[in-house]
């Protein structure tokens, strides 16, 4: 039997960042689910089995904090690690991110190699 690939949900409304993360993470062998809004992300979280969530903060329909909060309060996937990727560089956003239950915070612009190493730190290799 083959090992099941680790599955990552990437929530990002910026087309360029989303496709870059998709390219980088697929090359590393992870399975990906993509969402461009908070609404899409929340429906995927409730329906699919996920190993890691990478989310932006400024999103249409539900922002990153709300997504993490809903994940933590849900019945499925409530223990899943969450990494925030955001352009907000102020202390308040970072602290609030950790308070709602994020496990890591990466500031934009992202370095692809840093992203991979932080993902590996949370869920290991694909």
């Amino acid at each position, binding site marked *: 039997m083959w090992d099941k690939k680790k599955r990552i949900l990437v929530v990002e409304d910026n087309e360029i960042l989303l496709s870059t993360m998709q390219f980088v993470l697929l090359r590393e062998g992870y399975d990906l689910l993509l969402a461009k809004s908070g609404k899409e992300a929340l429906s995927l979280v409730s329906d699919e089995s996920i190993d890691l969530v990478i989310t932006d903060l400024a999103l249409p329909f539900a922002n990153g904090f709300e997504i993490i909060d809903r994940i933590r309060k849900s019945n499925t996937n409530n223990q899943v690690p969450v990494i925030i990727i955001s352009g907000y560089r102020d202390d308040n956003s970072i602290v609030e991110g950790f308070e709602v239950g994020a496990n890591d915070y990466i500031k*934009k612009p*992202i*370095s692809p190699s840093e992203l991979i190493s932080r993902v590996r730190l949370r869920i290991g290799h694909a």
Partner: protein
Amino acid sequence: MLSTLAHIIHDIRAFFEGDGWPVLVIVALVLSVLFWTACLVGIAFFYYRDYRYRRVYSRIYPTLRDFIYEHVLVENRTSHFPVDKLGLDLNNKLVSKVVRHVIHEFIFTIGGEKGQSMRHLFNELGFDKEAQYEIRHSATNMVTTVRSLANLALMKVPIQEKILDQLLKSPQVEIRVAASKYLLQVEGEQAFDRVFEGLHGISQLHALDIFQTIVQGDYFGDYAFSQWLDMSKAFAVNSLVMDLMVYYQELNEAGLWKLIDANKDSKTALKAVNSLGKLLARDSEERLQELYMEESSLTAKLEILKALGRVGQGKSIDFLNRLFMDSNLPLSLRKHAYRSLVAQKPYSTPLLRKIDEQGDRVESKLIRYVNHPMVHYI
């Protein structure tokens, strides 16, 4: 008299019922048609430009994205990109604009070494030369020059000293500000002297722009911004300097007092008082009290009371208490005096307790108002 009035009424009726009406209607109709046609042409032109941009973008973006992924992310190239393979006609203005926008987006998205490689790609596509050309040959065109300077700053491309000097001395303030921002982004702290030397004629928006450029950089040093406080300069310049002093906590009481003494009652003096408070200028408490007594303007008095509260070292407790208890003073002054007393805790705690126990009805109302969580002390 009556016949004149009758004549006027007749003229007005004639205008609306017959004679002048058709001409007026025709003129109005023609003008209206011209106006709406111009509006429609403008809207159509806007949508056509947008449509062309999107069409070119949708054609170029996948090619450029794949090129970047292949050469920057996979091959880890840092220079010598095979840009010929892209097959883009960069002489076409629209193509060039789209490519520039896409690469900008990638630079804002991808950081670290890869971000640096993206900058090299931008330069190898010749955009640095184009921007350099534009600042040399379009120095009078403000929009082009400002855009080119922003591009060169983003890519950290050096500009020839002579050209940069001309831009910093440009008669157009927008160009001077853009050149200052370029210098700050490219040279950081090294550029402070040169930028502040050339600051004149800027608006408050320009000052804010420069302030944000400085604080968004990586500067954490001990540069003396206060050396640029100058009573002969405009409010925007002094305000920028004071904002930077507060942001980097550079206390220079003598410099701020010079501004206050020279510009009493002016916006600059109020800002200087405000900065003294924010910088916790302990040695200025007594002088602030003296200034309060000399001042006649209510706004200035309020600003001084706020500053005393911010400094909050207990030296002005008696002074603030006297003001709070003075029933002849305007309520706004009494409220701020009490708020500044609260800000001086724990030095003022016994006094506050005493006021609370002994205060009359008016004072109790004031205290309730000041202590209400919805009342903000700005």
